């Protein structure tokens, strides 16, 4: 089959690879119908997240049609149209039983690559470095889905692929960011980033009862989506002197009740803080550029909630 593979920093290529096979009893094979890219892929494409190997198939946000199931798969059937989350979860361990699915104990084939840095292994992720399991990803014609009964969510009739694809990663990530905020009536929630996850966090904040949502980005089309699709107020950080001051003005000097960082380690910014981050990152003294996070920390009202979604190395 054809698949999009990582071959080095900023070097992705379409390659011919073998078709996936059932390797374990709970596996299923999906014919991928849609697979989308994620901002977090930038981290290994740009070379800030190590343990990729040349030839790795990437992609961790996808859906498809089940074409084959392993002998221990009970619920999922051939022909099912399903959305699959990026983390692979067993459903049986302590962490899965406590709904801490991304921390699953039984889906990481190479924990020794991860424990030295993180202390304990996480669940495996599709197409997302060998430190996170080294599983082949979904930017391919077919993908193997381990523990299919837990990881395949059947799509109800009448919904188009485009309507459900983002339930794989962007929606639940954004929703979780808003869920962390313990939103109460009257709350103002500020969200850094208007990419897929940021927009979903903004929408989720409204769904969970926020009275106002303020979205921060620099791209006009993204800010427009935040206004038009979500109903958020927006700040173009490249057009203002100081985002924190603007947020304070917009909230009567109190600051937002909750701040969500949906940008993370490759934040862009203006001024000395961003320049400092960029230099350190180029010299590999530091893998993170945390400008958005710094703003969120300072802007958040006293006793407010800071919710960090953007991936940071530390």
């Amino acid at each position, binding site marked *: 089959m054809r*698949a999009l593979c990582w071959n080095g920093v900023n070097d992705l290529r379409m390659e011919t690879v*073998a078709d996936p096979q059932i*390797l374990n009893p709970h596996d299923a094979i999906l014919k991928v119908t849609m697979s989308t890219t994620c901002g977090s892929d930038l981290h290994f494409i740009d070379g800030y997240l190590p343990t990729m190997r040349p030839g790795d198939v990437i992609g961790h946000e996808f859906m498809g049609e089940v074409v084959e199931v392993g002998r221990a798969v009970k619920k999922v059937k051939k022909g099912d149209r399903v959305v699959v989350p990026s983390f692979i979860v067993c459903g*049986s*361990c*302590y962490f899965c039983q406590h709904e801490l699915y991304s921390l699953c104990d039984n*889906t990481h084939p190479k924990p020794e690559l991860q424990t030295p840095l993180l202390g304990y292994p996480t669940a495996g992720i599709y197409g997302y470095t060998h430190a996170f399991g080294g599983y082949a990803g979904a930017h391919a014609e077919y993908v193997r889905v381990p523990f299919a009964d837990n990881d395949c969510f059947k799509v109800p009739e009448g919904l188009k692929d485009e309507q459900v694809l983002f339930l794989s990663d962007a929606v639940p990530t954004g929703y979780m960011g808003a869920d962390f905020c313990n939103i109460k009536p009257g709350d103002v929630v500020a969200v850094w980033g208007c990419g897929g996850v940021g927009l979903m966090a903004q929408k989720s904040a409204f769904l969970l009862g926020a009275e106002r949502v303020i979205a921060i980005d620099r791209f006009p089309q993204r800010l427009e989506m935040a206004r038009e699709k979500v109903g958020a107020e927006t700040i173009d950080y490249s057009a203002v002197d100081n985002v924190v001051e603007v947020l304070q003005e917009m909230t009567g000097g109190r600051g937002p009740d909750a701040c969500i960082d949906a940008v993370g380690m490759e934040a862009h910014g203006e001024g000395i803080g961003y320049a400092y981050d960029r230099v350190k990152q180029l010299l590999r003294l530091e893998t993170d550029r945390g400008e958005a996070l710094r703003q969120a920390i300072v802007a958040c009202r006293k006793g407010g909630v800071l919710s960090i979604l953007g991936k940071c190395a530390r």
Partner: protein
Amino acid sequence: MEEVVEVTASGEGQTHWLLHTPLGMTISWDSQLTQVEEGKLLRWKSLPGSWLPNTGWVTFSPSSTNRGTEVKLGFHFDLPVSDVSNRLAKFIRFIPSLKLEKALYRFKSLAETGEIPTTKNQPAARNGGRDQ
């Protein structure tokens, strides 16, 4: 640990062990189960005549409430006194923590889910299209 130690069942309570050392030397021996406490303990011992006499044990004990079972794996090697065995002792001390930990981790997955997570033979643009 599969790349360092291979164990195969070879009869009633007996196992055949292969230990691959870094210099390419392979040491083998047979062990006999010597103690079984149902649900708690297994202990085995190399048969007389083994060049590398050893015993091993695995224990199972309840963890704190709702945290499952704690499994411990141990080995004791009785090395003959010589230069070679001193070097071997260093190697044996070197394998353990990481390799044993991974062996236990894989066992945990097998016990909890019925399978061991793997990516071997999955698609990749190397080795002719598959991961080895």
